[in-house]
């Protein structure tokens, strides 16, 4: 602990803080470009210049004669930081004027506009006009810099965050600075574009509109976007993310800083892997097999739903009560033969709703864990010069081979309700199931030929999924469900970190969020509310008692300390 005074505000700073962090604790912003918490300090943009002094034990104050970069200057007990003196303000104005000298000022067509630090800082700290009378240096845009990245060279402020990222975090070192002085540019060597699996992060790191994501380019003005705090479901790392949407369309995912999960970044597989949520082939409404449909129609399935004068067909009307009665029938006939398959894409709440419901009807109903997709082996960064993985302890980012978000969370529910963990493979091997309730939600096809064959034609087949599969084709009941972007819920990552994800958009067509489906199916009162359910789960399931608070906070809570996070 160090007592630091920032513009007359006293704060307790960490002894490891630099001036920027210490000032942040006091609620004072020190503008900066080149400094980033996860990268090495270069102190080259000179935006964070401040005056620093020291309060001696006898109370006298000695200010340093020079401006110092806040990023490079550590604080200690008695440090005094001034960010509001005339000297500092003049330096900030000068730095901004210099940065804007050769900047094209093309905000009107720049993707970064609205979240650009050059805009923001100029607005807060800059001059209204430039005194430059000469032509600006014009440079070529570089669309070749990466498959997903375009470089608008003349917008660059040469903070070199991107260069340091590829050297220090991805270890692939594709980006570099070429030329010298004001003719400097970021570039790649010919035929070695910046295409590593973490490359998309340089777009987030770029404080200005120089590095842009080709995927997002010119798609949406950022001020129209609304953000939801969520969790990436691409692998078991469970990166904290922002889901940016506008009018029910997700435009991009961005990493959300989380020291307990992944740190500051996310991989491109996750970043660009969300497109399936807007796939036209998504299941858009619930479906009953023909034989059931005629039975149900006599049961008023096709009746019109009416709200006041408005009348419209609601495909969900009675589907769920019909499903419920079928489940009851099947369990009555053969409880041991009823198998519910819970996918690791389900949230903890959803798994809990289904498991507790089925078990409450008959203890003998079997619950099994659905397929856990695994692709290759864990991909660790920073890579060495020859592409080799880093040694233990040097790992800064891991893309995990387990391509689902919540195996540990669903397992915890299964262990509680089933006692033991049974996998789908084990369940099909026993070949004694007479009724199946499959929950999918996978981003890729998951019904293999062997599952398909083993399931065969049971007396009841219910599929709750987002895409059609051989199983859904012949299922008795298909419940059109949701992706991560469309629902609230809790996911437990590889290290046992439970994070709350918020839904960002509505389901396509008449599909419904899994939680909503299950709330109605299980005849629970009220609407689906992840917070309330977490409290309940925390009381009921001892291994998940960390959820009992309901609120998991910004970073999430650890449910087990079996494995430490790799990023710290």
């Amino acid at each position, binding site marked *: 602990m160090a007592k630091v005074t920032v513009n007359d505000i006293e704060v307790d700073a960490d002894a490891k803080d630099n001036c920027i962090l210490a000032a942040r604790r006091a609620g004072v912003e020190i503008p900066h470009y080149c400094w980033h918490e996860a990268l090495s*300090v*270069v*102190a*080259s*943009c*000179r*935006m964070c*210049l401040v005056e620093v002094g020291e309060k001696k034990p006898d109370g006298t104050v000695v200010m340093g004669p*020079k*401006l*110092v*970069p806040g990023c*490079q200057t550590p604080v200690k007990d008695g440090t005094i930081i001034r960010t509001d003196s005339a000297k500092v303000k*003049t*330096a900030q104005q*000068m*730095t901004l004027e*210099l*940065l804007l*000298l*050769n900047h094209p000022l093309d905000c009107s067509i720049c993707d970064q506009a609205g979240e650009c630090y050059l805009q923001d800082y100029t607005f807060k700290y800059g001059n209204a006009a430039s*005194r*430059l*009378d*000469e032509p600006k*240096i014009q440079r070529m845009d570089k669309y070749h810099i990466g498959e997903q990245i375009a470089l608008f060279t003349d917008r660059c*402020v*040469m903070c070199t965050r991107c260069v340091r990222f590829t050297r220090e975090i991805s270890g692939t070192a594709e980006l570099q*600075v070429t*030329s*010298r*002085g*004001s*003719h*400097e540019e970021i570039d790649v060597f010919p035929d070695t574009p910046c295409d590593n699996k973490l490359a998309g992060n340089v777009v987030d790191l770029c404080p200005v509109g120089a590095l842009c994501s080709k995927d997002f380019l010119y798609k949406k003005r950022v001020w129209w976007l609304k953000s939801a705090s969520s969790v990436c479901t691409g692998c078991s790392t469970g990166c904290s993310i922002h889901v940016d949407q506008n009018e029910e369309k997700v435009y991009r995912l961005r990493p959300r800083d989380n020291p307990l999960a992944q740190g500051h970044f996310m991989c491109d597989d996750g970043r660009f892997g969300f497109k399936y949520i807007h796939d036209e082939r998504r299941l858009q409404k619930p479906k009953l097999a023909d034989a059931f449909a005629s039975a149900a129609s006599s049961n008023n399935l096709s009746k019109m739903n009416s709200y006041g004068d408005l009348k419209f067909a609601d495909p969900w009307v009675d589907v769920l009560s019909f499903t419920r009665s079928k489940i009851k029938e099947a369990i009555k006939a053969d409880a041991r033969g009823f198998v519910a398959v819970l996918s690791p894409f389900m949230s903890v709440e959803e798994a809990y709703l289904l498991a507790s419901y089925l078990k409450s009807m008959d203890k003998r109903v079997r619950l099994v864990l659905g397929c856990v997709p695994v692709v290759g082996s864990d991909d660790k960064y920073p890579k060495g010069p020859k592409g080799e993985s880093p040694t233990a302890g040097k790992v800064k980012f891991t893309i995990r081979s387990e391509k689902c978000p919540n195996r540990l969370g669903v397992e915890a529910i299964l262990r509680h309700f089933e006692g033991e963990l049974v996998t789908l493979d084990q369940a099909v091997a026993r070949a004694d199931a007479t009724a199946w309730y499959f929950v999918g939600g996978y981003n890729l096809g998951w019904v293999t030929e062997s599952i398909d064959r083993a399931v065969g034609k049971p007396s009841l087949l219910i599929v709750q999924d987002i895409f059609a599969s051989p199983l859904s084709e012949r299922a008795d009941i298909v419940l059109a469900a949701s992706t991560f972007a469309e629902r609230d819920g809790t996911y437990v990552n590889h290290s046992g970190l439970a994070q709350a994800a918020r839904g960002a958009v509505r389901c396509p067509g008449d599909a419904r969020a899994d939680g909503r489906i299950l709330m109605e199916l299980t005849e629970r009162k009220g609407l689906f509310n992840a917070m309330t359910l977490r409290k309940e789960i925390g009381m009921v399931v001892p291994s998940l008692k960390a959820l009992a608070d309901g609120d998991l906070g910004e970073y999430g809570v650890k449910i087990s300390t079996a494995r430490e996070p790799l990023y710290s």
Partner: protein
Amino acid sequence: MSNEEFKPVLLARQGKPNSHKLATYKADGGYSALAIALAMKNTEVIDVVKASGLRGRGGAGFPTGLKWTFLPKELNGPIYLCINGDESEPGTFNNRVLIEQDPHQVLEGIVISSFATRTTTAYFYLRYEYGRCYRVLKDAIDEMYDNNLLGKNILGSGYDLDVHLHRGACAYICGEETGLIESLEGKRAWPRIKPPFPAIEGAFRRPTVVNNVETMACIPHIINRGASWFMTMGIPKDPKNPRDAGSYGPKLYCISGHVNKPGLVELPMGISARDLIDKHGGGVWKGRKAKAVVPGGISMGFMSEKELDTPLDFAGPGSVGCLGLGTAAVIVIDDHTSMIDVLYNACRFFAHESCGQCTPCREGTAWSTKILERIRDGRGKLSDIDVLLEISSSIGTIPGTTICGLADGAAWPMKTAIHKFRSEFEEYIQSGRKSESRTLAGSH
């Protein structure tokens, strides 16, 4: 010792036949200092150098012995010595003459300094463009290895030293202490942020000393003749100023520009610029008068004609608004030359050589060059002068806005030229005339 009775020390062997050969150097008493030093303790050598008051000849004038004492006391790995031979300050050519004419004098200094600093690997960072120096040094180092002056167990003392000759990366910034280290490591010569200073963490993350070639050349003489002899030359420290370390010893002055006899002369520290030009440079050419004089490489700024009696020691140029003595490379500008052209040339150099790391330097140097280009094209405005002054006062390590001193070097010519010749700038801008001197190719 007066300048008249002074006999060259560093240049004593200049012009002798085969002065660059080991045999002639030994015949003139070479490597006797090395034998003396190797018989001493390394700390004793440091004490002698400290006592001599020798200050670094590379430009900043930091006391050499003091620099050596910043190295860690406990040895837990290698210490490196880097010799800065990346002489690229405009107007400076003393290192080149020292290396070409008398490489063994420098190398003897390197071996003694390495011994004093407990270095077993020294890197000679040589400006790439110095091809002849490279060949001469390479031969000289080979000769030393053949004669047990380098390698294992030097002169039977048990001390080992390897000297690697490294050719530079053709950039002004490679001569900056930490830029040199980065370049030596095979990286872009971007100066490092300090702390840590090189004495704690330098080349290859090990404690490192970076010394100039001329500094090295002084070392054997100090060991041979003693610290007190060294202090008989130059300007003693100002007793009223406790921060003044004095300016002792001989110094190589490079004279160039508009003089009759450009060249390199060796004199005790502290000769005035006027004496240097008149007595040793043959006076200003074509019978003209000097208008301005650069005291020590273009980055130090300009002295006006009135200020020519300033002594050229470490403190002198600073007293008339210049940045310092720098490399003691005196460039004379006659009264027929436009200061606008001179300043433009200086700014163009720094804009070209700015490494581009810090915003103020990268953009400030380029902007000032553009402004001067426009003024030279007859399109200047009086307000440009204030913009130039503002740029010059806001870039550099002295206001604290850059990592290294390159921007200070870029700022000082601007500052001093405008302060001392403001009326000329105003008159030039108001006349709206175009520069008569040719615009150099590749300008910014």
